[in-house]
C-alpha cells in the first residue's frame, strides 16, 4: 500500500506547535512543580469560591454579650469546622478572608516589583547612557537594610495614608508599595543582563536597519524574549511578598485587627497559643503551604523555560 498511515499524515499536516506547549511538557516532568501547581490551585479555589459555599461573615461578632462569651474560643465542631477565635468569630471564614487579602497583596506587590524591575532593567540594558546611573541605583538599593526600612515606612506612613484613603485601601496600598519598591532589584539585574546580550543579536540589528524606532524594538523584539526570566522571578516574587506581608502583620505593623490576613490571624492567636494552639497552626500552615507550592512552581518554571534543559 502506498497510502500513508493516518498518524503520519496527521504528523505532517499538524500545524507548528506553540513553544508554550514544549514548556508545559517540560514542566509536567517536574513532579514537585506539578504538585505545587495543584496545591496552589486548590488554595486559590478555596479562598475564592469558599465564601460562596461557607456563608459566615468573618468579622461577625455576636451582638448579644452572653452568646458572644459562649461562642469564644471553641474547638472544631460541625458549626465551626476550624473553631472560633477570642471574639467568637468563625475561623474557617477568617482563614478564607485572610487568604484573599494575603494573596492579593502578594500578587499586586509582585506585579509592581516586576514592573519596576523590568522597566529599570530594560532601560539600563538598552540605553547605554542610563546604564551607569540605573545600575548604581540598583546596587544602592541592594545595600539598604530592607526589613528595617520596610518597618520604618509602614509605621511612619500608616496613619496619614489610612486617614486619606480609608483604613483598608490606605494600608493595602502602603504595604504593596513598600514591598514592591524594596524588591525589584534582582529582576532588574537579570533583565539588564538578558537585554545586553539580546541587543547584539542579528534580528535586532535587522529590525533596526529597517528603521524600527527604539520603543517598538523594545516592545516587539526584546521584551518577548526576556519573558522567561521575568516569569520565574515573578513566581518567586509572589512567595517573597506573601512572606514579607505576613512578617509585617506578625510584628503588629500590617493590617488592622478587624481586617484579617494570614499573618494578622497568627499574630492575634500568639497571646493564647498555649491554650489554643490550633489557631496559630492553621494560618501558619496556610502561609507555609502557599509559599512552598509557589516556590516549587517557580523551580519547575525555571527548568521548563530553560531551552538547554528542555527536551532532555
Amino acid at each position, binding site marked *: 500500500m502506498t497510502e500513508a498511515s493516518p498518524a503520519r499524515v496527521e504528523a505532517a499536516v499538524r500545524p507548528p506547535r506553540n513553544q508554550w506547549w514544549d514548556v508545559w511538557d517540560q514542566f509536567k516532568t517536574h513532579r514537585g512543580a506539578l504538585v505545587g501547581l495543584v496545591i496552589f490551585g486548590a488554595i486559590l479555589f478555596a479562598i475564592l469560591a469558599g465564601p460562596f459555599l461557607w456563608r459566615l461573615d468573618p468579622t461577625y461578632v455576636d451582638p448579644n454579650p452572653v452568646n458572644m462569651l459562649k461562642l469564644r474560643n471553641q474547638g472544631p465542631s460541625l458549626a465551626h469546622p476550624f473553631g472560633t477565635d477570642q471574639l467568637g468569630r468563625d475561623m474557617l471564614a477568617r482563614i478564607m478572608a485572610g487568604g484573599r487579602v494575603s494573596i492579593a497583596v502578594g500578587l499586586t506587590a509582585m506585579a509592581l516589583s516586576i514592573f519596576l524591575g523590568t522597566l529599570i532593567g530594560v532601560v539600563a540594558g538598552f540605553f547605554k547612557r542610563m546604564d551607569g546611573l540605573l545600575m548604581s541605583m540598583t546596587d*544602592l538599593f541592594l545595600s539598604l537594610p530592607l526589613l528595617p526600612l520596610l518597618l*520604618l515606612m509602614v*509605621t511612619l506612613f500608616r496613619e496619614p495614608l489610612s486617614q486619606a484613603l480609608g483604613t483598608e485601601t490606605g494600608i493595602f496600598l502602603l504595604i504593596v508599595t513598600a514591598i514592591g519598591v524594596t524588591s525589584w532589584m534582582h529582576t532588574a539585574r537579570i533583565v539588564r543582563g538578558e537585554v545586553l546580550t539580546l541587543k547584539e543579536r542579528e534580528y535586532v540589528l535587522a529590525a533596526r536597519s529597517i528603521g524600527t524606532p527604539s520603543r517598538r524594538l523594545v516592545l516587539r523584539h526584546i521584551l518577548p524574549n526576556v519573558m522567561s526570566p521575568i516569569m520565574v522571578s515573578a513566581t518567586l516574587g509572589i512567595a517573597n511578598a506573601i512572606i514579607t506581608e*505576613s*512578617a509585617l502583620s*506578625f*510584628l503588629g505593623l500590617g493590617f488592622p485587627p478587624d481586617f484579617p490576613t494570614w499573618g494578622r490571624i*497568627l499574630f492575634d492567636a500568639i497571646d493564647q497559643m498555649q491554650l489554643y494552639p490550633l489557631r*496559630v497552626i492553621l494560618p*501558619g500552615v496556610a502561609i507555609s503551604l502557599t509559599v512552598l507550592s509557589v516556590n516549587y512552581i517557580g523551580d519547575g518554571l525555571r527548568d521548563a523555560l530553560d531551552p538547554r534543559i528542555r527536551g532532555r
Partner: protein
Amino acid sequence: MLTYSIRRLLIAIPTLLFISLVIFLILEMAPGDPLADQPLTVPPEVREKMRAALGLDQPAWVRYLLWLKQFFWTEPLHLVDSLLGTGFADPAGRIVSWQFRAPAMDIIWQRLPQTLQVVGLAYLVGVIIAVPIGIISAYRQYSWFDNIGTFVSMVGFSVPTFFTGVVLIIVFAVNLHWFPSIYDTTLKVTDWESFLKQARQMVMPVTVLALFNASQISRFMRASMLDNLQQDYVRTARAKGMGEKVVVLRHVLRNSLIPVVTVIALGIPTIFGGAIITEQVFKVNGLGQLLITAIYANDLPMVQTLTFIFAALTVLFNLIADVLYGVLDPRIRYD
C-alpha cells in the same frame, strides 16, 4: 587587588553618605511627632523648650549635619577615649536616644552580645550543616538523600521563621517542657549549672535560624558542586587514577566553595539586623528587638543610628565578598 580594594572603599564613602541621607529623609518626611504623647496640659512654651532640648527647633539640614558629626566624629573619639582612657570627646555631644535618655551607642553595645550569641551561633551551625549536605546532595544527585535534602531545604526557606519558632514553642516548651519559651537575657553564665541553663534557652532560637540559613546555603553549595562535577578537570583527575575522595574533597570542593564563601560573607550582615522576627518570637533582647521598640517609641536618633549601622555592615560585607572572590579565584582579576 590592593588598588581595587582602595577604589571600592572610596566609592563606599559617598554610598554610605547617600544611604544615611535617605534614612534621614524618610524619618524626616514621617509625620510622627516625638512629643505627641506628652499630656495636653503641658503649656506651649514648655513644649517649645522640650523641642529645643531635643534639638527639634533646628532646620532639617542642621540636624542631619549634626548627626553626621556625632556619628563620624564624636562617637569614634568616644570609643578611643573609653579604650585608652583619654579625654578627646565631649560626652555631651554624643547621639542620645530619646527613649532611654542615654547615649545610643552604649545601648547598642549592651545589646550586641545577645544578638551575636544567638544569631551568630545559628549562622555558624547553619553553615556547618549546610556544606556537607550540599556536597552529598550534589555527589549523589537524584538519590533519596538528595530528594529529601532538596525537599527539606525548600520547606526550610518557605516556612517563615515566625511560624517555625511558634511551632517549636508549642511543641517543646508548652507541651514537653524541655526548653523555656522566653529567653532570659539577665542570666549570667558563672558555673556549669547556669551554662546548661543558657544552652537550653538557646536551643530553640538557634534551631529556627540555623534551619533557615542552612536551607539557603545548602542549595548554593549543591548547585555549585554540580557545576564543578561536570567540568573536564574532574574527568582528568579521575583518569589520572586519583581516588574519589581526593577528586571530590580536594579538587571539586575547593573550587565549588568559592561562590559559597561569598554567599556566606554576604549573609553576615543579616546576623546583625535580619533576625528581627526571631528575636521578637523568643523575646531575645537583641539589636532587632531594640530597633522594633525604637520604631514604636518614635526614637528617631536610635532608629537612624541602628539602620545606618545595618546599612554600613551590608556595604562593608558586599565589598569583602567581592575582594574575597578575587583572592580565592585566580581567574578573576580586577585590575
